């Protein structure tokens, strides 16, 4: 009888630990098509370090801009049965919805980090891209342009975050009748600095008169850097440029006091942190609130740029 009691107690304790499973020992797959991007990399590194320090095993899967490949890798992960959680980093989940469905059916929780949210996912940690767009566009239109002039937009609408900034730009542009859009140009993602530089060089020659372009609004930092380099070479000091993201090359250009005036720092570490926290809650057996969770963003200008320079 006593023996039985011991066995029952032991079993209960064992079950208790199972129900109270922690993040330690879990297999987490961090999956992204854009590991080459500075910021995506930053988030992946943060999550990897943080999760590994908590005892999880982390696999990083990068598919070099290839969404079809990403879809296949997700199928692999979903069918292998080895993975306890997937984190999708900087990838639009709606483009791989069918494959994610496999993961949902296999009971693997899917988190997004700077991605997007579709039903079935646990949480997507992101910036409110629309609000970030509003923040920087208002700064460009009000502070830099004084409500009038001409603007060029450098965009990349296929990206789920970037497109929301572009929509904010579209919406605000309607409210400023004295601001004219010269042209919007799409910048591909493989080598955005070089491509943006080429595009802006050509536009500068087409708009060669001084003050014919008041500002260049870039939907993220890399084209803003390319635009800045083109302007610097052409000696067009009067044209104002802004980016979004707060990457280090952009920040050092803002600090130099040249054409690049401002960017918005997304709180990438904040996003990565949210993902890890929510994942811990989930593995702890707590209820988590499904949906988007926002990490607040900051405007960086010459005034506060020194706080953001990494030593």
């Amino acid at each position, binding site marked *: 009888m006593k023996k039985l009691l011991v066995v029952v107690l032991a079993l209960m304790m064992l079950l208790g630990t199972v129900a109270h499973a922690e993040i330690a020992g879990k297999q987490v797959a961090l999956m992204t098509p854009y*590991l*080459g*991007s*500075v910021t*995506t*990399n*930053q988030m*992946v*590194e943060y999550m990897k370090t943080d999760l590994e320090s908590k005892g999880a095993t982390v696999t990083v899967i*990068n598919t*070099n*801009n290839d969404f079809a490949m990403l879809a296949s890798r997700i199928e692999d992960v979903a069918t292998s049965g080895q993975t306890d959680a997937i984190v999708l980093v900087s990838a639009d989940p709606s483009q791989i919805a069918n494959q994610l469905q496999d993961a949902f059916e296999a009971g693997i929780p899917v988190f997004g980090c700077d991605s997007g949210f579709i039903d079935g996912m646990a949480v997507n940690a992101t910036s409110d891209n629309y609000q970030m767009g509003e923040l920087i566009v208002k700064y460009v239109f009000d502070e830099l342009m004084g409500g009038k002039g001409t603007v060029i937009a450098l965009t990349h609408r296929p990206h789920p975050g970037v497109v929301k900034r572009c929509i904010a730009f579209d919406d605000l542009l309607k409210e400023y009748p004295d601001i004219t859009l*010269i*042209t*919007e*140009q*799409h910048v*591909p*993602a*493989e*080598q*955005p*600095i*070089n*491509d943006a*530089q*080429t*595009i802006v*060089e*050509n*536009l500068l*020659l*087409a*708009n*060669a008169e001084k003050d014919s372009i008041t500002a260049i609004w870039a939907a993220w930092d890399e084209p803003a*850097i*390319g635009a800045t*380099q083109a302007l610097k*070479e052409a000696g067009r000091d009067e044209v104002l440029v802004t980016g979004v993201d707060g990457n*280090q*090359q952009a920040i050092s250009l803002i600090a130099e006091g040249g054409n690049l005036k401002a960017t918005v720092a997304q709180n990438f570490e904040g996003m990565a942190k949210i993902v890890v926290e929510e994942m811990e809650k989930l593995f702890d057996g707590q209820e988590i609130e499904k949906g988007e969770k926002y990490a607040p963003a900051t405007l960086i200008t010459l005034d506060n740029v020194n706080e953001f320079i*990494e030593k």
Partner: protein
Amino acid sequence: MKNMKKSLQAYGTLLALAIIILVFSILRPAAFFTVRNFINISRQISLMVIISIGATLVMSINEFDLSVGSMASLGGVMSALMAVNGLPLPLCFLLPILISLVIGWINGWIVAKFKVLSFITTLGMSTVLSGVIYRLTGGATVFQNIPKGFSWLGTFKIGEIPLLSVIMLAFVVLFGFIMRHTVLGRRLYAIGGNEETSKVAGINVPLYKNIAFALCAVLSCITGMLIASRVGSANTTAGDGYFLSSYAAVFIGCTVSKKGIPNVLGTLVGCAILGILTNGLTMLQMPTYMQDIITGAIIIFAVIMQKLGKGNAN
């Protein structure tokens, strides 16, 4: 009539280039048809020209090198990393060239030795190189702590002329000469024309294949290093975008030659057509999707024209 057809065939592509230039000059006289803009275009196409010359060499022996894009990305990443780690700058640009030479030689050796399709071999190599880039960088763009002097090659100007344009011209002249007037060039074309006959004629086919692939890798690597130097950072996929456009340029270039074979001057014309289209359409402030549609259509049109021309000639 027959003569006209013949000259149309030989000069059709050049004529198309002239028409494109004419149209843009009419639509944007003040901005497009200026010395300044042509200097600008020469620099914008310089990187594509260098990598496309590499593709021309490999295509002249009837092979493909699909690893040009990732070789370029790797070139940029290697030189940037060497610079970050404090190697003297000349070495940062010379060592990657040696490494790329070996990689290209391996490509050629596998293709010649095992008589496998270069398409697949170089596709495999491309994937390997992407993996190496990932291992070297962790996937991140190399930017932090790049010394200022690293950007010299990509940004220096001699008066108004960008050094990049001069480098491009030097490569066009050098390889134009090699392909036309040296034993190496003639043997490469001989192998491309008929590999079996070349073998019978006593040409060391495997050796020349190795050389073609090695030079192609070196030119890709140089392109990648110049991209990194121009933008001041090395993106892990910076060269990938050049892969398709370089082959488009070589194909358009074939139409310049009477025999329809890859040639360095033709490749320059191909790059010029693609570069001038991008330049002029951007100046017209045309939305990007229209630029893509027009550029793609012109590539297809060029290839059809060449085929039709050949059919009539026979």
